[in-house]
């Protein structure tokens, strides 16, 4: 399938040089590849029966009836919708215009519904839509916080590969402090401090000592993994009762909002850390693009020399951004040990920091898009969990692979060349 992409993208790249048109065939080709794969799946592994979608649980305020649909018919109808969108994309591209985002969104939702219908077909169990979406929000929390922190750092010109280390440090310290004090709030604050400390080291080496940022990031990850695993074996395992059993945050349903069908239980029956995330995403966006501080951050990230010339202290601005970014990542780290489960485990972040890094780039260094990318990853992970409950015919390994394959296709086909802040990765030397 890679070959298809290449053949189509090659001549087009040359065409783009001749004309001023900004439209490329990448989006259309990407949609086409996905649609072909989808059709192949349906043709090669037809799956008769009916799919049951549960829109609410019996304890919800508004109980909706379970929707039962014929699986294959639904899947093909969804495929047809996808084909329509593909046709629209081709028409748009031939006219030299971009494929709008809403079209891609419609395409994605249609194929997803079709896929779910196909996967859940014939299962006696209901596929819980609320469980699918609500779990996705929960799983995406560390990814979204990690991505937000990464965006802030990179906008100021400091590449943060150490998101993984910051999440892990946050989780570790939150576990210890949360256990000692018996208060999840103390754990949350401690996680923020710990993660900011890792960020401080990152800043000291990259900003003050001008060491290559990628090196420091990679090495800090190893350092934090080493330190936390060492102390985990030496301190937490022997003293599991006193040092490694936290009190978790309780779910905090928001009155009224919580009783909205589907959306209510998904979004408004979560823990305080999730609500903080709802606030943090727009807050970071507002801070970066609508405040004087954000302008300074973006200035030192794009053109530090110019920023210096107009009187911005580049070093100070970068330190501040890196520390704030680290603190935000720390909130995500706390999620592991005071929200998700009540104890720390060796390397428990399991690469989430790298996924968050991918979300930063996927989201093109924009807080809102990066958060959406984080949500997407969380959703894909949870999709697998839910389908394994329903009993999907696909081997679980391929379901687990799906989010990463989709990201690959999306990055290659839809996002394309992403441009980092111009000075991201380069230390600033004042002349």
């Amino acid at each position, binding site marked *: 399938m*890679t070959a298809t*992409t*290449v053949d189509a*993208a*090659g001549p087009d*790249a040359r065409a783009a040089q001749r004309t001023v048109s900004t439209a490329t065939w990448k989006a259309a080709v990407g949609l086409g590849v996905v649609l072909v794969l989808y059709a192949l799946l349906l043709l090669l592994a037809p799956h008769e029966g009916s799919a049951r979608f549960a829109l609410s649980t019996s304890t919800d305020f508004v109980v909706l009836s379970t929707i039962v649909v014929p699986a294959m018919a639904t899947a093909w109808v969804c495929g047809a919708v996808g084909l329509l969108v593909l046709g629209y994309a081709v028409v748009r591209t031939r006219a030299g215009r971009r494929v709008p985002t809403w079209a891609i969104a419609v395409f994605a939702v249609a194929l997803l519904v079709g896929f779910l219908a196909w996967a859940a077909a014939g299962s006696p169990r209901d596929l819980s839509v609320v469980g699918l979406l609500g779990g996705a929000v929960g799983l995406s929390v560390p990814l979204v916080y990690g991505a937000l922190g990464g965006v802030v750092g990179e906008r100021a010109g400091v*590449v943060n*590969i150490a998101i993984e280390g910051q999440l892990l440090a946050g989780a570790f310290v939150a576990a210890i402090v949360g256990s000692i004090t018996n208060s999840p709030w103390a754990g949350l604050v401690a996680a923020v401090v710990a993660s900011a400390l890792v960020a401080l080291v990152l800043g000291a*080496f990259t900003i003050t*000592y*001008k*060491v*290559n940022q*990628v*090196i*420091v990031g*990679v*090495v*800090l990850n*190893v*350092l934090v*993994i*080493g*330190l936390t*695993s*060492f*102390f985990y*074996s*030496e*301190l937490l395992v022997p003293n599991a009762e006193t040092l490694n059993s936290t009190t978790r945050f309780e779910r905090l349903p928001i009155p009224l909002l919580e009783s909205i069908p589907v959306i209510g239980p998904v979004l408004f029956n979560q823990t305080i850390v999730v609500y903080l995330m709802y606030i943090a995403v727009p807050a970071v966006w507002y801070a970066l693009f609508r405040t004087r501080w954000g302008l300074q951050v973006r200035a030192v990230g794009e053109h530090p020399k110019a920023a210096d010339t107009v009187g911005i202290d580049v070093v100070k601005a970068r330190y501040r951004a890196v520390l704030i970014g680290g603190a935000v990542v720390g909130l995500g780290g706390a999620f592991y040990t005071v929200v998700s489960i009540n104890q720390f485990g060796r390397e428990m972040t399991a*690469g989430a920091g*790298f*996924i968050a*890094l*991918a979300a930063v*780039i*996927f989201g093109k260094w924009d807080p809102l898009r990066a958060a959406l990318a984080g949500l997407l990853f969380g959703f894909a992970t949870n999709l697998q969990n839910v389908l394994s409950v329903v009993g999907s015919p696909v*081997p679980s*390994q*391929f379901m*687990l*692979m799906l989010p*990463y*394959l989709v*990201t*690959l296709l999306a*990055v*290659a*086909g839809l*996002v*394309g*060349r*992403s*441009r*980092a802040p*111009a000075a*991201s*990765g*380069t230390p600033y*030397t004042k002349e």
Partner: protein
Amino acid sequence: MSGETPRPDGAEPDGPALGGTTPGPETPEPGAPDLTAPDLTKADVDPDSPLGEAIGSVDAVAEPGLAEELEQEVAREAAPAVEESGDRWRDALRRATSGGWAVALGAIVLAVVAGSILIVVTDENVLASAPYFFARPADTFAAIGQAVGGAYSALFQGAVYNFGADSFAQGIRPLTQTLTNATPLIAAGLGVALAFRAGLFNIGGQGQMLMAATAAGWIGFGVTGLPFPWHLLLCLVAGIAAGALWAGIAGLLKARTGAHEVIVTIMLNYVAFYLLSYFLATPGLMQAPGSANPKTPPMQDSAVLPPLLGSSYNLHWGFVLSLLAVVGVWWLLNRSSAGFAFRAVGENPKAARVAGIDVSRTTVLVMLVAGGLVGLAGTQQVLGSVTTGFSVDIDAGIGFDAITVALLGGSSPWGVLGAGILFGGFKAGGSAMQAAQGIPIEIVLVVQSLIVLFIAAPPLVRAIFRLPQPERTPRRRETRRDRRRAASTGTTEGGRA
């Protein structure tokens, strides 16, 4: 740089090729002209000569490699002038204490001290004697000495030579284990380093190793009837090709669609992991017959890398392959036109394109070669180290360790060789330390990462140890001005007075 060749955020052109921006990690080889030599000689270039002008026009920060090459050129021309300069001993001492070796030594000392602190604060005897420290401080110090001494002695005996062994053959076993551990680290480190040199951040070592292990392993146990060297050869080729292809996907996507190689390689890691998990969990594919474990059958004898020092040691011919790979990569980078294109793209893709280098093609080629090298590591794992059948953790974290190895080695082939052996030793010694002293092996990670971190920041190490800071810029300016003045008054003496 906007538009077609985006600055890869993970791997900016002048970045991870450590030797470029940070003088520290590129430790000069003994006997080679050391770091400050170009400094002395640079002053002797006539600023009006074409070569001098060229140096002046090269932005040392943006294109360190080019500037360095030019400086070396000058150094060769002006070598006799240096000989004439006075008080060479003082110069030599200053160079020795501000040069790369002193920094590397200082970094290792700092990291070892930090490791000792970790050992001390978690040691039971030290903690037991600490409460009465002011009454009997000697107890605490004795306990500290015992804990630290025992740990590092175990580390050394586990990595280099076991003094408790009966014979030399027994005693040297840890060293062979170190080299066995180093074998895949060197190969994979080379793959990451090569990508670094071309400005690409290959974070996908895990996936490339897993795919290589899949291909080599499958042929290794699945194909029957092939005689010894050919079966092994086929496995090696298949493994290297699989690694190359897996990384090649990232290169191709980067070159054709601009997809960021950091995302693509991370994603490919997961895809490879689950693909291999599927193969291993499915009877009839790679799962050993009659077993429910996700594990392959053992490799056939005709596909196994033979032991290098006889069957009593683990060291296998894979180590020789790694050494060959080091030489090969050195030749590729420093003596071949393809390697020149790699470095040129790494230093400055825009300039490379202007110079007529096909950046897209080079990107794909770099990733293919890098993936092949990482693939070699995966192949060595299944055909050399773990021949009794492997599971999905066959990469053993080497894909990520390779990044640290490449960084410590300054992305140069010989540096990677040294760093790989060092890390192999840490791995071997760490397990011995865990077995003998009960110190978790993760302390090795801490020490390793601190070494890389400190080596990457020479000014910090120099400040801690009060080593002289090399003063490059001011002196150069001054001497140049002097020369210009000298030229204007008509004096034409060579060398520094």
